[in-house]
């Protein structure tokens, strides 16, 4: 890790990160509040192999609770880190995270409305998803309406403004909420947690994440060019305006869909892209898979901490901040690596 220029040669890094993610996930499967013996584990896997539905508590824990939760950690971490890479490249700014355009604030508002109206969990998730997409859509419309200015600047400022509005609306609903049942639920949701993830949630989230990922993979070369700046992009024949819409839409779709099941988890999309950039350099084609794999491992790791530190869950959003903030300060202090 002597600098971004030295790193891109090592072709084993991405396969290595993939192996690491699998190893972390496998290790996480053995940790938890419910004791699962080795024999129980083997029996459970055999039963799963023969296609039997979960019977024992051990099987329920492994395949109904821990398994989906770890998978969710992988997906959420990968999606947030991937979106972070995209946004940082797009805005050519290292301080940008997936929620710069207000997706988290909008998703938070959607979920809080759902909790406030005492809706069932699935409806709360859908409102969070819709809220995230709608907020970013609104920000984009503002950017389109304000012509003649630096489009990235208007986007970021629009995100700040709409995000602040959503935050104010959340505060209003918190005041109106029933302090004995809705308020704690709202607080927990806004802190982010994977505690309530079910197998079914994954099936709802995976398609949206994949749909978001496809254009990012197909357009990887153009996105690389985009990070050079609009002028350079134009001279290389890349039409930055339309590309920006597609890329924002894709990254927003990924973020909004995972935030809908996990709640607001900060810092992953900010810090992980930086570490990935230190490892593989700024080339988007390698940066995206590296960051997604690292984000996946990181979130599973932190979530395992969240569920095993005590009998009572520590919301994962708190842990990612506690780990992420000092690390980011260290990056700032170190401050030598290039980001683009």
């Amino acid at each position: 890790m002597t600098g971004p220029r030295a790193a891109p040669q090592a072709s084993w890094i991405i396969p290595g990160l993939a192996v690491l993610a699998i190893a972390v996930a496998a290790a996480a499967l053995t940790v938890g509040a419910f004791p699962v013996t080795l024999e129980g584990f083997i029996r459970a896997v055999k039963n799963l192999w023969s296609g039997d539905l979960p019977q024992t508590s051990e099987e329920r824990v492994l395949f109904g609770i821990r398994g989906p939760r770890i998978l969710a950690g992988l997906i959420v971490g990968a999606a947030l880190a991937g979106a972070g890479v995209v946004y940082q490249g797009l805005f050519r700014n290292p301080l940008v995270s997936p929620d710069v355009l207000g997706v988290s604030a909008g998703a938070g508002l959607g979920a809080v409305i759902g909790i406030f109206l005492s809706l069932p969990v699935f409806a709360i998730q859908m409102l969070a998803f819709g809220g995230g997409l709608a907020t970013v859509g609104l920000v984009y419309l503002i950017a389109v309406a304000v012509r003649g200015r630096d489009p990235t600047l208007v986007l970021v400022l629009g995100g700040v403004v709409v995000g602040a509005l959503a935050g104010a609306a959340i505060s209003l609903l918190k005041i109106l909420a029933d302090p004995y049942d809705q308020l704690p639920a709202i607080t927990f949701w806004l802190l982010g947690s994977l505690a309530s993830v079910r197998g079914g949630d994954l099936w709802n989230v995976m398609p949206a994440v994949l749909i978001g990922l496809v254009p990012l993979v197909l357009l990887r070369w153009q996105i690389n060019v985009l990070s050079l700046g609009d002028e350079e992009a134009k001279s290389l024949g890349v039409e930055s305006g339309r590309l920006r819409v597609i890329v924002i839409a894709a990254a927003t779709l990924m973020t909004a869909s995972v935030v809908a099941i996990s709640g607001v988890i900060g810092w992953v999309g900010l810090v992980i892209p930086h570490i990935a950039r230190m490892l593989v350099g700024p080339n988007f084609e390698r940066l995206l898979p590296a960051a997604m794999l690292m984000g996946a491992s990181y979130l599973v790791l932190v979530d395992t901490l969240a569920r095993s530190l005590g009998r009572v869950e520590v919301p994962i959003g708190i842990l990612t901040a506690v780990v992420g903030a000092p690390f980011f300060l260290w990056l700032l202090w170190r401050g030598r690596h290039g980001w683009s």
Partner: protein
Amino acid sequence: MTRIDRRSFVAGASMMLLARPAHAARTVTDSAGRTVTLPDRIDHVFAAGGPASVVVYAVRPETMVGWPRALRAEERPFIAPAQRDLPEIGLLTGRGDTANVETVLKMKPDLIVDYGSVRQTFATLADSVQQRTGIPYVLIDGRFEASSSSFRLLGNIFGVPERGEALATYSDDLFKNLDTTLKGIPEEQRPRVYLARGPDGLETGLKGSINTEIIERAGGRNVADAQDQRRGIANVSPEQILAWNPDVIVTWDRNFHDKLAKGGDPLWQGVKAVKDGRVYLAPTAPFGWIDRPPSINRLIGLRWLANLFHGARFPFDIRQDTRAFYKLFYHVDVTDSDLDTLIAWADGKPPSRPARR
């Protein structure tokens, strides 16, 4: 415990001093040990929050100037007609102030009552509001154990000592009865209970929190014991619930109860309480039976839960006991059909979803 005993002693002592007809301005010592000067007549009372509104309504309903939030359709039949349409006035202290001091002044109350924690934070808040508004502000201990002394204290503050005494007698009898019977039930025979909150049931009150003290009081054991100093509301993972494997699950969230009842969630089906059919839904009209708010509304839930936990050892005639409680505390003669609604509710069949706000 010694601090608390001293406080209830102070409360009791001040009650004896005040047990004479009130004519001139008088002073009272509230549960936080604050000395408050009261006006001759108390006609209008501002209840600072949910728990206070329940207790003020129970002791002296005609003084109420409003509810922290307007009553919902399902709650209205269980509140006396005169108080049914009182306006929404918000909360004054605690989590999420929605009533500001000017609103309070506009209502021109003779007294502000808060019921709940009497810790230093709330005592200083009370002092500050009292100073700014010039309206006397009393802080009453809202814990279960303090119920009787708090009723007596409030009866005296309001100038209706016999009313305070009647409510205190009810709670004294109930607690005494529980204590006597629970003495014969060893720890290991008490059911292990999980109190499920939140839309997915993964929120709970830790052992020792005001939200779950009803479990221990009714002779159960709260499985959510952080085994440290933590109290209050916490999030737990489904895996932890399977590991705890509670004998009984109690909730007031109908969405969650509905999901369990329909067997919709295979994860919960592995929990002993669900397999044994011991998942109980607490009614919440006009106030919650087990919490929400954590006030004296929990006394009826205490009878109900003790009976669910221990059966015939705590006889509970839901028809008769509910009617008596609602008559004494809520000033209503519950009609047969409303009573049926409550009984079906406590049996896991709540009335159809009311419109919210």
